[in-house]
């Protein structure tokens, strides 16, 4: 917990306590518009995807119940463990690529020097581009015949980036990091600024050096932020679709065919909505498990915080 814990009890009760316990009846209807949208386009579909996973549907014709047929097909298809493995790789590798660099960059832009704020504004630029735009631009930039590498006649940049399995995965991870590291460093920057100076002063008196201060003060104080940031990263990686769809279409040889893309291709390209629904249910389950794990890591005392992600 960050130092602000100590200020919480004194400032919050007066502001948080709802005064109008009797007003529920008059206020209850205000949630209805939002609730209506959420039920129709999130809750019903969530139940629906479960139901559809027991049917056979080509996306146009009639829907017929086929029991466990879709599930048997999905669970015995080697495509599923492969898609899970690809998704797992993207989650883990993009976390490893982003987290240390985001913290480092967050520490850097949290400094008070003016130019660092200017840099932060520039760092944020990639986030304005759509995943489609980023993928298209990188596809051009990495083109083995007409891209940046052959233009500069640099052999190391002139590779069949999207044609080789490991390279394509590397490119996906790099682009995720390129686009999202600035966002996460902004989150870390906000948290770093909340660490009280007194902690560093005390450490200085104790003779702790800069590196020591980073590891024994900054890093532990960032624990909660790290969980918020990691949750966003993991959920983002789990549902990566646009980027891979435009960049590689899942190739080469399905090397980047992650779960969300697998669902789309099975449902809307191969017209097997029943199978795709089963994959979607697996996607939901994986998402819920990951959310639970992260919540546990965060400890019980801060369970409401995760919801902020």
């Amino acid at each position, binding site marked *: 917990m960050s130092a602000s814990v100590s200020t919480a009890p004194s400032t919050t009760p007066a502001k948080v306590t709802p005064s109008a316990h009797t007003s529920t009846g008059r206020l209850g209807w205000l949630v209805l518009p939002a609730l209506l949208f959420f039920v129709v386009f999130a809750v019903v579909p*969530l139940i629906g995807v479960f139901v559809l996973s027991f049917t056979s549907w080509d996306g146009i014709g009639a829907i017929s119940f086929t029991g466990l047929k879709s599930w048997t097909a999905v669970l015995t298809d080697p495509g599923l463990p492969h898609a899970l493995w690809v998704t797992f790789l993207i989650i883990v590798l993009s976390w490893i690529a982003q987290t240390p660099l985001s913290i480092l960059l967050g520490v850097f832009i949290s400094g008070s020097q003016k130019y660092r704020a200017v840099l932060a504004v520039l760092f944020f630029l990639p986030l304005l581009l759509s995943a489609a735009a980023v993928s298209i631009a990188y596809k051009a930039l990495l083109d083995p015949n007409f891209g940046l590498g052959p233009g500069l006649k640099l052999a190391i940049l002139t590779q069949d980036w999207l044609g080789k399995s490991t390279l394509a995965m590397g490119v996906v991870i790099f682009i995720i990091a390129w686009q999202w590291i600035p966002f996460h460093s902004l989150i870390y920057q906000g948290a770093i600024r909340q660490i009280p100076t007194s902690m560093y002063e005390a450490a200085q008196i104790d003779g702790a050096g800069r590196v020591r201060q980073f590891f024994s003060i900054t890093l532990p104080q960032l624990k909660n932020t790290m969980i918020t940031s990691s949750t966003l990263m993991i959920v983002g990686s789990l549902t990566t679709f646009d980027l891979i769809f435009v960049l590689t279409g899942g190739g080469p040889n399905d090397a980047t065919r992650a779960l969300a893309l697998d669902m789309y291709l099975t449902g809307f390209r191969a017209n097997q909505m029943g199978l795709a629904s089963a994959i979607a249910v697996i996607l939901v389950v994986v998402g819920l498990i990951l959310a639970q794990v992260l919540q546990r890591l965060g400890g019980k005392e801060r369970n409401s915080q995760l919801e902020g992600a």
Partner: protein
Amino acid sequence: MATQTATRRTGSSRSAGAPANGTTARKNWLGGAFGWLWLLIVLIPIYWIVITSFKSSAGYFGTNPLLPSATPTLDNYKLVLQNDFVRYFMNSVIVTVGATIPAVLISFMAAFAIVRGAGRWLKAVNALFLMGLAIPLQATIIPIYLIIIKAGMYNSLGAIILPSIAFAIPLTVLILSNFVRDVPNELFEAMRMDGSSEWGTMWRLAFPLTRPALVTVTIYQGLQIWNGFLLPLIFTDRADLRVLPLALWTFQGQYSVNIPAVLASVVLTTLPILVLYIVGRRQLLSGLTAGFSK
């Protein structure tokens, strides 16, 4: 929750210009070196995209890729504009405005009720919205597709707008309710003394006081919807209904060998967002810090 609220308030006042602490003004060689290195990593591709988009499609490959063209041309931009860019731009504007504004308004009403009201009903609704944060909503796309077809909405901008509103609700309600909670209770009491209805209090007191948060979530959700790809891809297949990301993708499919033209389309689709970012960057950056660094 209480901790969260207090912490966030500290965060937002800090980013509003109060003296920072922690690593203030200390030299940090590693961070500094990496900061400048990252600047290059961010800017070189963007720089390359922009300068290449002004090169002629025929002669671009012979030139140094990192030097601007000696004879810049607007031909690529003309080609993109001739390919119905204006229509796609308008589609994107309609979808983004049509989804973001209602989403933020109904989320604000819900957030107000959740914070100011009490009882099991509102608690249950809040829990339902929070659940929406843990579930990858993309996974619900197939049943939504079925709903859209049954409602006769396939191939309409409404088919993109309605689910976008629903997907934006959980996070928007969460952030806005944190901010409504920050409004001092005495102000609500004063409004009540003056005989204001809850409806009036909501719009005349809570709405103006949560304005910074409202602007931030509007920008954030607007950006998400503007850049959205999956919903337009699945719910429309008519050329005149394409939104920009989808148009970009089809354009790239048609002109993939004409790299300068493809890059011009990337620049052109990002330009409106860039202009908005230049205008509202302070709001967005400090708002995001306040919203996520809890």
